[in-house]
């Protein structure tokens, strides 16, 4: 967040509080050297905020602090401080912290004329000077109004006190009880004009949520919304979530979904790291199983996975996943898989967000699973849930965490409203559909969208086997109807049979052809033989004919010789003819 002060010539110095989120919200901390008013009703965390400011100042920022309590006694103060996990005696011994307890009961004090609060000034001044304090907390100075009856004197003295604090140059927090018509019961906001922080502890729908708002911060830009905050053993955490922009780095690294077949549908590599994946589907469609595969794959890569379970207990998840052959036990033991199970109704929507933030910051997972996100629906309106999830997704993206959300959709409705509002925020959307076919329900997996990658547009049949999830091709019947389950199996068998028949058919044809060829060749051989016989016969006839012709010719020559014509020649020719015929 940018502050105006960064642009102006004289930057407004700020004292970081060290409180998670508050410094982001205020653009660096509280106005340095000035008093800040923190007000709210009883039990909203004023004292804790002030206390954390002083302790963190002393421990983290090297600024000693004075904590002056008007309400609690030393023991109570001690207990409260100790609850933050800091060694107070150590801090006091090192002169980093001074605790002051101011006690004043009206019944014990008789007022007999003019007075001022110089004693308080001297006391505070002495405490500040003795440890060189840079931070001061007055908690809750309004208590003086109940101890002292002269309001006019008190007001004048408080005004003087705040001016004096400014002159001292200490960064101060003054806490005040919330009034009915004004910010504080005694109008302290009139005197402390630089920065006013309001704390609130509201109950909506039986769920209490703490909220913080910066009502005023003179000379500085600040977040103006109400921000939920959490109080736990680590102190206060505030989420200035809405101040985040869309400027996260987009990774090109891919992480496996845990299912090679699903990875194949996404170009063979899986999801992008830091992307958000929505798995929506009807009850029992296998959303958690898909999530478990993803968690298992993350564990196998040596990454840490944080699983927020809003329906099942950790042991139930482990048992159920074991039944489909996914063993999450070892990962849980190695603490690479952390299951945080909580009923969604334990706290409000914002509180869940804060819890998730806190755990993610603490455990630094690479993969987060939220199962199921649709359970938040009971905690707020659609708009609230969308806003919460937007902030959640943004947060995950900032941290480069790959997040998988499961979402339960209504049985028959194809796209449920929550799913729609959420889906636009998601990078990858897997839809698990239940398809009724004959007498069975079968599951189908659609990869509806997957930003920034080529992905399969085909529907896959989704099977839960004892070896985990399996994805199968889906058959389309003759009339374009999807066939799944036993229908698909039937069709598969049918196709196999047909193929067999076809195979048999071709073989027969081949053999017949061969046989025909053989037959043909045999016929050719016969014909050839016949031909040869005929040929031989023909040759013989021709020879005979020639012989007989020659014989006839010879006879004519003989007759000529006998007639004494050409006598010599005829004799020779007759002889040759006789030899040939023999």
């Amino acid at each position, binding site marked *: 967040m940018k502050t105006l002060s960064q642009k102006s010539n004289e930057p407004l110095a700020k004292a970081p509080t060290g409180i998670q989120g508050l410094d982001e919200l205020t653009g660096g901390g509280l106005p340095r050297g000035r008093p800040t008013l923190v007000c709210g009703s009883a039990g909203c965390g004023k004292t804790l905020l002030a206390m954390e400011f002083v302790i963190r100042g002393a421990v983290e920022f090297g600024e000693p602090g004075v904590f002056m309590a008007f309400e609690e006694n030393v023991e109570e103060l001690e207990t409260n401080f100790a609850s933050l996990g800091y060694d107070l005696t150590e801090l006091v011994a090192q002169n980093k912290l001074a605790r002051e307890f101011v006690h004043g009961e009206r019944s014990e004090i008789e007022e007999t*004329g003019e007075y001022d609060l110089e004693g308080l000034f*001297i006391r505070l001044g002495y405490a500040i000077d003795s440890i060189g304090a840079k931070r001061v907390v007055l908690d809750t100075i309004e208590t003086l109004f109940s101890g002292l009856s002269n309001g006019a004197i008190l007001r004048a003295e408080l005004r003087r006190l705040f001016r004096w604090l400014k002159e001292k140059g200490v960064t101060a927090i003054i806490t005040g009880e919330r009034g009915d018509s004004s910010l504080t019961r005694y109008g302290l906001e009139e005197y402390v004009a630089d920065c006013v922080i309001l704390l609130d502890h509201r109950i909506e729908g039986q769920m209490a949520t703490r909220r913080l708002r910066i009502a005023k911060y003179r000379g500085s830009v600040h977040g103006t919304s109400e921000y939920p905050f959490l109080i736990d053993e680590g102190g206060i955490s505030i989420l200035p979530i809405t101040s985040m922009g869309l400027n996260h780095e987009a990774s090109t690294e891919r992480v496996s979904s845990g299912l090679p077949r699903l990875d194949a549908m996404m170009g063979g590599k899986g999801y992008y790291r830091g992307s958000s994946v929505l798995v929506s589907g009807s009850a029992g469609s296998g959303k958690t199983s898909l999530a478990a595969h993803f968690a298992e794959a993350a564990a196998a890569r040596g990454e840490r996975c944080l699983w927020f379970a809003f329906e099942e207990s950790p042991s139930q998840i482990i048992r159920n996943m074991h039944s489909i052959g996914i063993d999450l036990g070892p990962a849980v033991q190695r603490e690479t898989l952390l299951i945080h199970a909580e009923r969604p109704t334990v706290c409000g929507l914002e509180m869940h967000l804060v819890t998730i933030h806190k755990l993610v910051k603490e455990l630094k997972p690479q993969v987060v699973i939220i199962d199921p996100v649709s359970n938040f629906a009971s905690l707020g309106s659609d708009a609230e849930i969308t806003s919460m999830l937007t902030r959640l997704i943004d947060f995950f993206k900032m941290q480069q965490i790959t997040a998988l959300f499961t979402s339960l959709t209504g049985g028959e409705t194809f796209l449920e409203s929550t799913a729609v509002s959420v889906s636009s925020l998601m990078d990858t959307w897997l839809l698990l559909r239940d398809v009724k076919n004959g007498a069975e329900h079968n599951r189908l997996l659609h990869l509806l969208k997957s930003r920034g990658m080529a992905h399969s547009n085909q529907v896959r049949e989704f099977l839960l086997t004892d070896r985990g999830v399996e994805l199968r091709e889906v058959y389309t019947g003759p009339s374009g109807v999807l066939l799944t389950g036993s229908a698909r199996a039937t069709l598969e068998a049918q196709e196999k049979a047909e193929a067999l028949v076809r195979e048999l058919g071709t073989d027969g044809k081949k053999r017949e052809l061969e046989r025909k060829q053989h037959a043909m060749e045999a016929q050719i051989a016969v014909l050839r033989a016949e031909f040869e016989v005929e040929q031989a016969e023909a040759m013989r006839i021709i020879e005979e004919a020639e012989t007989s012709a020659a014989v006839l010719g010879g006879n004519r020559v003989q007759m000529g010789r006998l007639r004494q014509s050409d006598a010599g020649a005829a004799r020779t020719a007759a002889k040759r003819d006789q030899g040939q015929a023999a």
Partner: protein
Amino acid sequence: MKTYPPTEAQEVVPAPPIADFWSLRLYIAGQTPKSLTAFANLKRLCEERLRGRYAIEVVDLIEQPRLAKDDQILAIPTLVRRLPPPVRKIIGDLSNTERVIAGMGLHSEPTTSTLEITPEA
């Protein structure tokens, strides 16, 4: 403890009976008009009712700031009745005599007849 004003406030009476001895401490912060008024009022009242049985110790917090914490002093001036017990605190310049008497528990202490100056004088 330093007494104030230095010249007049040496009224520490040696070892009187414990039950009837009044030990008073007046916290001030510098010689402000309010402080001076308070001391004058206190002195007068003590002379009136507790002559010879009281000691006033004046503590200037500017010189001994630590005592502001130790004795839980908030308002200035503050008068603390240390003896007789219980400890009582009265704040202000002690100009409202009625309230001072009530606050200090001086009702039972009669006005000394030998006193020359009356409060009203």
